[in-house]
């Protein structure tokens, strides 16, 4: 086979790799026998390939798998939610899977009831309405993966829930990104939890459909930013305790960031937690606690409450009686007004002036072992007034009560305690410092 030098050279390169046909091998070996330049070129090509092969290999960073795991979970959630959103009210813009996410879960304790809708239903009926399963999307690979993961982590039979027409659960309670914001909804029971979640998500989606924050994938990959998305009808489960009455609700990152900015001076440490409770409002960490106190005091128009006792976690609960906690939380987290529920069936929009439920935002600093200060509590008279107002607005049993002290303690005062348990809303915000990007140029 006649060939030019270039063709022979190319064959020699393939010969180094054993990628020649029988005919080509014969040609090459014939040239090697008679052509010293061919032999030299072959040797040089072998040396070149060997030099490249000898380059050191680098194991993938250990953190890569961890971060990737979080990214995969997010991708599952986003792709599944995007498809769900498309079937709803024209949220086609949400079809693009977002590369990162921020999460917020509102912890609602036994006390806050939110409106499910108009009508004179009993609480149980309203809960039943609110917890009607949404149409369950057929499992896609991503959502199935999500559910499988959720099942695995929570121990709950998620697939059975789906099969039963119940809402799928969202894999939550997981550190997606270094910056993570989570509000956990805790309710008196799972039905209430579900109802609260629906209400929150309905409020969020309707109020903040335009506020999605999209981040560039590259930025997201560095864990420096988080995207935003909504989960309609989804419920979050605390997978450490699946039966715990918690849900998670996601909020746009810009609003989530507003939470951080508003309650923190920007100094964050890993695993920081900020917890707001309607009843006692708790913030973990003295800086955030004080910031929260000041924030709520500003809204209240009062002087910031002086810190009280500090517990092991530097909890601070802010108590600002004049502040409507629902609105306050709504402003802080960007939720907007959250409809209040009344147990007797009256439901109203939660405009602060119309709501028959008000919250006492109490501030206290739980005692440390070294101090003997007692918890500050809402003045019984104030609590009593609120109960009375609630009772008056209701046709039957009071719609809500406010925790005057710890969530477990009934309000004090001459009047009998409300028929149902103390109620509070807790917002827990967790965030951590983003990982600093190592300078490529640094040595």
């Amino acid at each position, binding site marked *: 086979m006649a060939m030019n030098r270039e063709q022979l050279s190319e064959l020699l390169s393939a010969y180094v790799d054993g990628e020649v046909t029988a005919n080509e091998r014969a040609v090459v070996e014939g040239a090697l026998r008679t052509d010293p330049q061919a032999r030299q070129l072959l040797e040089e090509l072998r040396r070149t390939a060997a030099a490249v092969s000898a380059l050191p290999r680098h194991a993938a960073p250990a953190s890569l798998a961890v971060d*990737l795991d979080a990214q995969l979970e997010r991708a599952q959630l986003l792709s599944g939610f995007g498809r769900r959103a498309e079937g709803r009210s024209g949220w086609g813009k949400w079809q693009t899977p977002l590369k990162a996410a921020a999460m917020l879960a509102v912890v609602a304790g036994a006390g806050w009831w939110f409106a499910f809708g108009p009508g004179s239903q009993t609480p149980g009926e309203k809960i039943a309405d609110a917890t009607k399963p949404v149409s369950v999307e057929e499992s896609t690979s991503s959502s199935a993966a999500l559910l499988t993961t959720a099942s695995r982590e929570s121990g709950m039979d998620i697939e059975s829930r789906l099969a039963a027409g119940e809402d799928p659960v969202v894999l939550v309670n997981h550190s997606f990104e270094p910056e993570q914001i989570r509000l956990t909804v805790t309710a008196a029971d799972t039905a209430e939890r579900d109802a609260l979640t629906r209400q929150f998500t309905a409020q969020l989606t309707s109020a903040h459909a335009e506020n999605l924050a999209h981040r560039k994938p590259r930025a997201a990959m560095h864990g420096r930013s988080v995207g935003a998305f909504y989960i309609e009808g989804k419920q979050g489960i605390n997978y450490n305790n699946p039966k715990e009455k918690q849900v998670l609700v996601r909020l746009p990152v810009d609003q989530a960031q507003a939470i951080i900015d508003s309650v923190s001076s920007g100094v964050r440490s890993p695993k920081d937690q900020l917890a707001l409770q309607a009843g006692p409002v708790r913030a973990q960490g003295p800086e955030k606690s004080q910031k929260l106190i000041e924030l709520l005091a500003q809204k209240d128009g009062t002087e910031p409450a002086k810190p009280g006792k500090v517990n092991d976690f530097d909890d601070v609960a802010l108590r600002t009686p004049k502040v409507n906690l629902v609105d306050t939380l709504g402003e802080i987290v960007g939720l907007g007004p959250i409809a209040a529920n009344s147990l007797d069936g009256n439901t109203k929009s939660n405009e602060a002036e119309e709501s028959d439920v008000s919250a006492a935002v109490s501030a206290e600093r739980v005692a440390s072992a070294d101090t003997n200060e007692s918890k500050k509590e809402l003045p019984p008279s104030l609590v009593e007034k609120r109960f009375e107002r609630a009772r008056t607005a209701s046709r039957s049993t009071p719609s809500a009560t406010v925790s005057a002290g710890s969530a477990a303690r009934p309000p004090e005062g001459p009047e009998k305690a409300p028929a149902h348990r103390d109620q509070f809303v807790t917002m827990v915000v967790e965030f951590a410092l983003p990982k600093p990007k190592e300078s490529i*140029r640094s040595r």
Partner: protein
Amino acid sequence: MEQVKAGQTQSYGELVRRYQDRVFNTCWRICGHLEDARDLTQEAFLKAFESLDSYRQESGFYTWIFRVATNLAISHRRTAGRRRAQFDGHSGLVRSQAEALARRMEPGEGEPGSGDQDECMRVAALLQTLDDDQRAIVVLRDIEGFDYQQIAAILGLPAGTVKSRLHRARMALREGIVAAATGSKRT
């Protein structure tokens, strides 16, 4: 892969663990930066996962993931642009672009090659001087050990194109590698 397509994330995790080192190295050698390689590797696995519906069984997962990773790395490299000679604040102006590139690649914790560190750095630097497509083929062949058919499947090229591009890449590298070896022999 069927398990993965059925939605078991855990299965995908197994695939990740199986291929992450190789994918990472591929991205690293193509794009030239360790940190970018990390991001690209993550992105590749993520992208592959998101595109599972498009995955066809006729090609193995390694083809799939390396295709995604290689394309990402090449695109990244082209977007980032050519590296320029950098002023090394610690030791003064670097002597050549290749040396600057070699320093910036920072093998770090990787296992040392059979040659000395300088040789490896020089070869690594020379690799970065190649055309992006040529470099990808060299990496896939001489570092990752794929055969021509596999490379063709990964890059979506005819095998003949793989052969010719690899040859041109080696000829370009050969000058620097052989010349350095010749020079060291004389000294």
